[in-house]
């Protein structure tokens, strides 16, 4: 025997490695709606298989936890079982020698707290709370419940008009969502089990690029009901509600504060991400249903909520979250300090800033910070830096946005907490002072906290500071009218109604706080349905497009098609769209990757789709 050997990879080892990687993907694709206790038990079994077997708590204890959980799942458990499970898990957490044991136990304890209801249901009611209500992952995770497998199949057949029509059944902003949706639908795509999720947004983009929304006819409106609904706010939520209410035969009137419609889609998202003419396509289609619009109307001064409430049969408040959060550090009032929303709003008015020769610092790590930084680059800034308290990995912005910003020359200064703004004798910004941070222990959400590092404060020289630390809702006039508020948001029920107020509804960012466009659309859809019922009707929204039969595609793993972008050095010089569409070849391949969960698997049980709502 040789004294030392060079280890060559063997097949068993590399297969195990690969299985581990693939299992990770599989976990990502866990279908929504399965029993959390059952999933927990399966995780625990994996943990137990990882044990080396040396220590009692891990070798024996994890097995006993499994037995107790089996008992609970088989509805043989009692409150005593639950107590023993908890005590044993805590013991393992306290006494296991290494992470294999104590982390396994911690996860069990986390589940016991986090989905206690499910445990209790198994123990007390002898039943599981989980059920396959809607087993198609992409549709389940889409807030507006768009028929995704349906339109993917339509794109595959080149039926782009029909794809747009089908999307519109649930979402009248096909173009907006094709260009800027955060696509939660892709998160648990079952295709992750084979390779990676379908590029759902990319396929939607292919549909709307080949069948522009304003060229695809909207459905016919139901006969007029004679009812009138006031919509406060012409953003995605308000316009969605207006669109569906028009289809239901009600006359809507949108009151918009600004000169143009679109809300944050226009006054928050720069043209290079969402070209204005594309936004206009969605808006034109929506308006073609007969929505009436009053622009430049301010609620409180031009018209009051009381008036709207009196004159209309129902009111939907969807004013969004357009005002900046207070930036409360020393020197914040200096000349050259601007809010991100203010700057993006100006761009929305088509008043572009000129930062020639200026050094710009953007504070924040979300998508708005990226929008600001990339806009500053396009405004000819000499240098643009993003200052953020945490690590790049902790940023809430989409990875593609961060990468796009970096490619265009934005610098990331991470683990830097802004301390004060330095200004010259004229009150103009000269620098931002920051306190370096160290990534610390996790907070409740599982994100590491930034903690003050044992380092000196740093000076970042700059002429402009753009503050992107969040947005607020202008609650004033609505609060005065009597709509309750909490944490600076309007308080509405799940059905968008306002407790104790007849005929008043609210939804979108002004209720949820700043969120995504698809959530705002979903709220508008829910509001439309509930306003329709409130008005004494039950109009159904459906779509008569026939969905193609699934084909017998081979299920060979293949690469996901990514959208490409214009070259950074070229695109950063203008405000034109950055993203390129798929080619026909790419779109067809990507569409064919769809596993058609509406037909295969549990989806087929209830016909694969909700044909109307």
């Amino acid at each position, binding site marked *: 025997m040789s004294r030392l050997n060079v280890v060559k990879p063997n097949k068993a080892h590399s297969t195990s490695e690969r299985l581990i990687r693939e299992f990770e993907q599989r976990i990502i694709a866990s279908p929504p709606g399965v029993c959390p206790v059952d*999933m927990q038990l399966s995780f625990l079994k994996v943990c137990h298989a990882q044990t080396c077997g040396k220590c009692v708590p891990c070798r024996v204890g994890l097995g006993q936890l499994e037995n107790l959980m089996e008992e609970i799942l088989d509805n043989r458990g009692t409150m005593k079982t639950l107590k023993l499970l908890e005590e044993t898990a805590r013991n393992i957490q306290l006494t296991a020698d290494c992470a294999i044991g104590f982390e396994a136990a911690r996860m069990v304890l986390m589940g016991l707290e986090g989905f206690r209801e499910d445990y209790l249901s198994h123990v007390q009611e002898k039943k*599981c709370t989980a*059920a396959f209500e809607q087993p198609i992952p992409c549709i389940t995770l889409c807030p507006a419940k768009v028929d995704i497998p349906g339109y993917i199949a339509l794109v595959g057949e080149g039926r782009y008009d029909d794809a747009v029509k089908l999307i519109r059944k649930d979402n009248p902003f096909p173009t907006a969502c094709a260009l800027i949706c955060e696509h939660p639908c892709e998160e648990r795509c079952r295709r992750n089990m084979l390779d990676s999720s379908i590029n759902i947004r990319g396929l939607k983009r292919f549909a709307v690029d080949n069948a522009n929304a304003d060229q695809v006819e909207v459905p016919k409106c139901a006969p007029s009901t004679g009812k009138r609904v006031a919509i406060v706010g012409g953003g995605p939520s308000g316009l969605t509600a207006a669109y569906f209410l028009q289809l239901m035969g009600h006359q809507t009137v949108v009151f918009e504060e600004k000169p143009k419609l679109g809300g944050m889609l226009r006054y928050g998202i720069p043209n290079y991400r969402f070209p204005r003419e594309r936004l206009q396509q969605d808006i034109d289609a929506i308006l073609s249903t007969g929505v009436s619009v009053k622009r430049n109307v301010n609620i409180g001064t031009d018209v009051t909520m009381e008036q709207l409430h009196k004159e209309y049969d129902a009111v939907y408040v969807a004013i969004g979250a357009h005002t900046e959060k207070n930036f409360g550090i020393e020197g914040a009032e200096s000349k050259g300090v601007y809010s991100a929303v203010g700057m993006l709003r100006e761009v929305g008015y088509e008043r572009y800033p000129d930062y020639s020769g200026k050094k710009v610092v953007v504070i924040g790590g979300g998508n708005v910070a990226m929008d600001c930084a990339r806009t500053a680059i396009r405004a000819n800034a000499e240098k643009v830096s993003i200052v953020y308290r945490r690590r790049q990995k902790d940023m809430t912005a989409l990875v593609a946005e961060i990468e796009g910003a970096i490619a265009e020359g934005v610098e990331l200064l991470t683990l830097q907490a802004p301390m004060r703004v330095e200004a010259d004798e004229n009150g103009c910004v000269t620098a931002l002072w920051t306190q370096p941070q160290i990534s610390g222990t996790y907070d409740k959400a599982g994100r590491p906290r930034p903690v003050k590092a044992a380092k000196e404060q740093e000076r970042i020289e700059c002429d402009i500071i753009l503050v992107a630390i969040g947005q607020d809702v202008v609650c004033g006039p609505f609060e005065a009218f009597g709509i309750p508020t909490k944490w600076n948001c309007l308080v509405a029920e799940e059905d968008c109604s306002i407790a104790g107020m007849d005929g008043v509804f609210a939804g979108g960012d002004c209720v949820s706080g700043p969120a995504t466009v698809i959530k705002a659309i979903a709220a508008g859809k829910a509001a439309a349905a509930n306003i329709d019922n409130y008005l004494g009707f039950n109009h159904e929204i459906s779509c008569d497009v026939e969905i193609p039969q699934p084909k017998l595609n081979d*299920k060979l793993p293949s690469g996901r098609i990514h959208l490409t972008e214009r070259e950074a050095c070229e695109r950063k010089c203008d405000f034109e769209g950055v993203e390129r569409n798929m080619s026909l070849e790419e779109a067809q391949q990507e569409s064919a990757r769809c596993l058609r969960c509406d*037909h295969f698997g549990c989806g*087929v049980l209830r016909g694969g789709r909700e044909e109307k709502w």
Partner: protein
Amino acid sequence: MVNLTIDNQKVTVPEGTTICDAAASVGIMIPKLCYLKEINEIGACRVCVVEIEGKETLVASCNTAVEEDMVVFTHSRKAMNARKTNVELILSQHDFRCATCARSGNCQLQTIANDLDIFELRFPQEYEKNDWDQEFPLIRDASKCIKCMRCVQICEKVQGLNIWDIVNTGRRTGVNVSKGRKIAEADCALCGQCITHCPVGALRERDDVEKLVDAIADEDKIIVVQIAPAVRAAWGESFGMTRDQATVKRLVAALRKTGIDYIFDTNFSADLTIMEEGSEFLERLSHKEDYAWPMFTSCCPGWVRFMKSQYPDMVSQLSTAKSPQQMFGAVAKSYYAELLGVERERIFSVSIMPCTAKKREAELPVMNDAGAGQDVDVVLTTREVGRFLRAKHVMPQILKEEEFDMPLGAGTGAAVIFGVTGGVMEAALRSAHYLVTGKNPDPDAFHAVRGSEGIREAEIDIAGTKVRTAVVSGLSNTRRLMEAIKNGQAEYDFVEVMACPGGCAGGGGQPICDGVELADVRGERLYQLDQEAPIRFSHENPSITQVYKDYLEKPLSHKAHELLHTDHEAWQMPLAPKK
């Protein structure tokens, strides 16, 4: 049209045809368990899997459409191995102690396992524990359920009730009463459609044969049996008899061999129902403003349960007339006991029904108007009667036809069509016309109410009075009709409802022939019997004339009310769960 090859045969079928149907078109019957055409095409059992040339994985032939030039092998080694393994997997979770199963000999799983030479199982057996209210007329045995989901789908899609649902997830996924309810707490109509669409023996009626056997053994009891109209169109199926052979008179002969004392016909009390319900309708019509409209028939207990649970505020619109089964029971224990000169308590009243809901109806606390216990002591389904006759060593095939006993054995053509959707309406219209005009109409004048569409409307002219009628069968159809009535989109005077699609002919207590809907052929048989009947008007039934003359006086008399009408509000039914 699409051209393909299945097992080396060229096949041409319309676009969109499934592989399974394409194969069937050339006589290749691919076995399947979960499939129910247009109702459950979910490809869950994976027994119908076939191999397609050029494809690695097998596909479910039941829900995969054919493609041009496809080459399919339904019994290649690969396909057969897969099918066999999947059947074994199903058996590993199915209690296959077939000897004690109601579906033994009529079970798809049993047949397929046998055909595939599965004589030992390579997997250990582990089946779901059963926990069920054995008193309820609908019995579910979880240890036999193969999770095909047919019951869930038939109840939701055809009957619109969602009594069944999928419960739990992962390996514990199963079927049970929805919303965590016990079956007795559910708004189950007891139509039994889940039973007749179960491929195995996981669902069946509560077996009451023993009660009859015990009663026969009790010398003090006088056993009186009634046979429902729809039973005569179906009872022979489980004996392999043709409909021409399996006449009701041959069933009479068979039952007479078992020790039953008197064998009567529910057609008698169906005619009685027409007299009472028809008169009630005319009475309501003459005080139109005193009633909510339309009036609904009340002879289908599944429908009455549906009405009470789904539309409790409309129960007063049900005719107060009892169903023929209950009228018969009340008359048997009163009028007939008197005719025999025996104490009412000695009569043991048995009904043979195509229906599972009838079992519950007979047990209702209000159904004891003759004052001698329940008016109907035991209800057997057509299926139970088949078993009972075999246990009594009766071979109906070799028996000569025999007549019903009299007087309660007399029935008309109008009564026999009670067993098919539209029949009650048609029979009622025939007699209503007579009651109004004093003249018989052409018995075939009301064909407008016949047909197999779920909802049928007809406007009938009775001596210048327009009667707007609707006939509906299947509870999803019924719900649509009820909503239209509630919303004011439809207005009628008289509505007939049957819970089972096609009416009692397709009843949940009828013999099961997996994958085939027999309601239509059985219904046709009933229409044929009506056509051939010497008397085709209920009011001309001589026994009916007699019973009114000797005992009941006239329709809607005090005595008739006492024995033949009921208060639908006097008993409780679980309400539909809130959405």
